[in-house]
């Protein structure tokens, strides 16, 4: 669905993307993870033909991105983090503009608004929507066309957990319909839940890639089991046969309150590889 080879992009003297290779198969959810400024949005803009790049090759639907026709572009839905809506117009009127542009029947508008949970807000001006509702309206705009390929740039950034879960559900529904999804996020939990494959992007380079669980397993150096006892004591056991006996005896005594294996999350893998967090302290604080 998307093939990229050795993409390089510079802004003035700064190299923002360096030697990026991608191979995104049809029907998968691909997650590009990285902290703010890593080059995620730049990469989406390159793949969707919004930005020219210095070297490399990008193919979408098997065609060079520059050769995509209007019909090809109609099958691509793009929801960027900074894309706006027409504030003074109602949700339905916002969608009507794009129904006219794409030649989609108006009957799809109500259906799409219902899908994203905005049916009651159809006549409400976009300026009166909450942040989560606006995000759902932006998503409705791209879903209305039933795209084959969906680009979602930080689709849940700054949203409350309920709206986030709602959007995750919509994304999974699109996947079930056969849509290929390319999403960027710095939320590793979101990537673990949604993505079939992830790539970790740092300072313009992909530093690790694979299925989220594979990536985590690859960095499971510690192989430890952490047990919190009812007495308040924490014990750390090695991942071996001796520990099996010890855990069994603790279980029999009924003193185990929690038990965790120590395989890393995508966040800890990222920290191990780069020495920095996916989300800045500031973002974590205000999330």
């Amino acid at each position: 669905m998307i093939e990229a080879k050795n993409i390089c992009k510079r802004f003035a003297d700064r190299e923002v993307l360096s030697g990026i290779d991608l191979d995104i198969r049809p029907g998968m959810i691909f997650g590009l993870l990285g902290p703010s400024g890593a080059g995620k949005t730049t990469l989406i803009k390159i793949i969707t033909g919004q930005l020219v790049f210095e070297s490399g090759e990008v193919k979408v639907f098997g065609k060079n991105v520059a050769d995509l026709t209007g019909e090809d572009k109609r099958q691509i839905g793009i929801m960027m983090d900074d894309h706006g809506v027409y504030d003074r117009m109602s949700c339905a009127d916002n969608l009507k503009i794009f129904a006219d542009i794409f030649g989609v029947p108006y009957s799809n508008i109500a259906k799409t608004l219902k899908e994203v949970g905005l049916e009651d807000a159809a006549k409400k001006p976009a300026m009166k929507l909450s942040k989560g509702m606006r995000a759902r309206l932006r998503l409705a705009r791209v879903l209305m066309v039933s795209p084959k390929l969906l680009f979602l740039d930080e689709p849940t950034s700054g949203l409350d957990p309920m709206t986030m879960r709602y959007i995750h559900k919509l994304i999974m529904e699109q996947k079930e319909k056969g849509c290929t999804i390319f999403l960027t996020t710095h939320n590793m939990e979101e990537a673990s839940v949604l993505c079939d494959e992830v790539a970790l992007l740092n300072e313009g380079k992909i530093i690790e890639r694979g299925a989220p669980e594979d990536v985590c397993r690859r960095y499971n150096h510690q192989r430890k089991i952490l047990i919190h006892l009812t007495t308040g004591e924490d014990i750390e056991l090695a991942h071996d046969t001796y520990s099996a006996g010890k855990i069994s005896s603790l279980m029999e005594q009924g003193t185990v309150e929690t038990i965790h294996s120590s395989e890393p999350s995508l966040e800890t893998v990222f920290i191990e590889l780069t020495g920095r967090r996916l989300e800045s302290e500031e973002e974590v604080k205000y999330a």
Partner: protein
Amino acid sequence: MRNVVTIVKKQLKDTLKNKTVLIQFVMFPVLTLIFEHAINIPDMPELFFAKLFSVMYMGMAPLTAVAAIISEEKEKNTLRVLMMANVKPWEYLIGVGIYVWTICMVGAGVIATSFPAKDIPFYLAVMAAGFIISIAVGACVGIFAPNQMVSTSMVLPVMLVFSFAPMLAMFNDKIEKIARIFYTQQIRILLNNMTFDGIKPESFAIVAVNALLAIILFFAAFRKKGLE
């Protein structure tokens, strides 16, 4: 063509709810009707307010409306969404241009009710040409301005020159000599004569040069900045 019609429809819906742009379209036609019917000063030239406000309307409404529409879409990143939906920049600009021109012509039609019926075709023809120049100038500002605030500060001096120069020219000969290079002043002269036969080659040439400059400037701005 479908996209151009979509842009026109979008603007129609949006402007009805956008008071700042709407007031530009309504203000001068309404003022003209009020002044023409309410004020009658002895020795005042015939249709003085209708002609004066027509030129001010031409120099102000299309220019500020086009600049405001384009710069707002840039600021809110809705223009980018349109471009990514495969709306071509020329389709967008023509759509906005047709919309603003049409609304301004409706406004001119309202002002035209003050004129004798025989003068209306000439009046509307002259206004139609003037609106096109103003729209091109407004589009230049909209293309250059990254957001509405910059657009307002850029459009204000241009608008003041084009809309107020003809009025000031009535009271000051020096200003009149300078104002004569602007299309709005020439259109004011044309409106005073109010006949196709009375169009002087000088007026025609100045309006044509203004139009040419506006179009060249528009293409230069578009080539340099694009629409994003």
